[in-house]
């Protein structure tokens, strides 16, 4: 893969922090090397607390890594990445349209223009008619759609998604996964998707990066060779199940070895 096709390139990313109560140095991410091409949908999969969300926050600029470098392909204008946050991240005091337009307002777009630009995205995520409603009037799934729309509105080449469906019930979650693929198809972004659910990662991605528990490092980089478009039924197919099994085995093996090692 030539460098010019890469959207994101990370080398030796390491994250250490000091635990507040015990004052011990803890390693969240041990050393990550990762290349993501333009337009790829990549999932980072791992158990809770393995540093995957931390990695996303480093890319987004909310945290600073202890070591290592990340290169993001520049657009020449504005930001390269936008984040879709985990559960209920809408501002309760803004209406849906104002929430979706928020990223644009931050970038300096005037309110009216921002709303105008946000409107088609509200429609894209299926929330047309709810522009003037407030978050407390929406269901969890609808709130997450608005969350997604907000990140899409700033039209960055890279989309970072931090377990966005974690707080949804099983059925809504599946619907949202299919919806996400539909929207991604229309928007064509590079997506870095963090999750701890194996089926979700396999269903959505071109590649699944499997991470170990803390200290987090990449255990495997699995290419998912299931053709698109992928309807939800694909989850029952043998190829899909095989991928799931492979990853599950990998994770549980690692958990066993980690547990039997002397700390």
């Amino acid at each position, binding site marked *: 893969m030539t460098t010019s096709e890469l959207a994101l390139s990370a080398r030796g990313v390491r994250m250490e922090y000091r635990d507040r109560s015990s004052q011990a140095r803890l390693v969240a991410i041990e050393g990550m090397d990762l290349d993501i091409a333009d337009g790829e949908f990549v999932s980072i999969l791992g158990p809770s607390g393995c540093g995957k969300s931390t990695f996303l926050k480093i890319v987004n600029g909310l945290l600073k890594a202890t070591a290592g*470098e990340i290169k993001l392909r520049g657009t020449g204008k504005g930001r390269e990445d936008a984040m879709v946050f985990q559960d209920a991240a809408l501002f309760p005091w803004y209406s849906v349209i104002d929430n979706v337009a928020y990223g644009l307002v931050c970038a300096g777009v005037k309110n009216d223009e921002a709303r105008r630009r946000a409107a088609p995205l509200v429609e894209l995520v299926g929330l047309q008619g709810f522009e003037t409603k407030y978050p407390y009037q929406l269901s969890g799934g609808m709130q997450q759609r608005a969350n997604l729309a907000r990140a899409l509105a700033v039209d960055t080449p890279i989309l970072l998604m931090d377990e966005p469906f974690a707080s949804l019930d099983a059925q809504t979650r599946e619907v949202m996964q299919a919806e996400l693929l539909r929207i991604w198809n229309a928007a064509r972004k590079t997506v870095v998707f963090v999750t701890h659910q194996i089926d979700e990662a396999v269903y959505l991605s071109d590649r699944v990066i499997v991470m170990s528990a803390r200290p987090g490092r990449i255990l495997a980089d699995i290419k998912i060779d299931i053709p698109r478009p992928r309807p939800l039924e694909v989850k029952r197919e043998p190829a899909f199940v095989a991928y799931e099994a492979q990853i599950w085995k990998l994770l549980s093996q690692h958990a066993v070895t980690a547990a039997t090692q002397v700390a």
Partner: protein
Amino acid sequence: MQSADAVATYRVIRPRARRRRSALGRWYRRNERAALGLSGLVTFFVLWQVLSNLGLINDLFFSSPAGVFAAAVAEVQKSRFWNDVRYSLTEVTVGFIASLVLAVPLGLLIGWYRRLSFSFDPWLNFLNAIPRPALIPLVVLWVGLGIEMKIVIVFLGGFFSIILPTVEGVRTVDQQLLDVGHSFRASQRRLFTSIVIPATIPFIATGVRLALGRLLIGVVVAELYAQTEGIGVMIDRAADVLDSGRMLFGVLIFTLMGVLTTELAGRIEHRFQRWRPSANVDLEEGP
């Protein structure tokens, strides 16, 4: 940016800059709040002293820290001072303990019987809304100007501050937990001791905090009003002869009491908040 592949520009995200930290630097980072807080305090006193020396603050009305200190040294050697301290402390302790002992059982009782709590709610809220100092003339009619009056004022302040959160605590016990008790056929008494009382303790702790905050003002005003004994009277007498050093020293004593009680109350409440599922931030009420 379709055809610009060959000259694609990249933004580089760099790691946190490593800085060598001296031991002092590291200590500072860990105790930043204390360090800055203390320096703020010191700055305040230094500024005060300087302004006083420069004559920008009238020494007569508002003594300098040095003046207060001198007055303090003089006062603590007098037995009358310690008498006043003992007087004020007695009011506070007796009044507070009395209010606690009465308010908690009553609160538990009232809260438990729903209809009873509805009936008492308006009265309790009404009485709680009355500023304590307004009750002073009434209490004077009852018990005169002696130490009893101050104790009653402290008691009344504490009583209503404690009983209201207690009632609320009992009323908001999680129905699910009570269901558990019922399903195991627990007796009324066991329900009470094993579920209701533990669930209410955080609320009682809040009430104690509120009470401690408010009773100090009751003490001060009661003493200023009655002019018999106590630190409040010391303040007043000092003000009369324009001995601002002594007066501010008296204020300082109350500050000390206030700080100690607020800190103590905060600690108690914090300790009992730990098992509360989701704590609503109840903003501080102080003197």
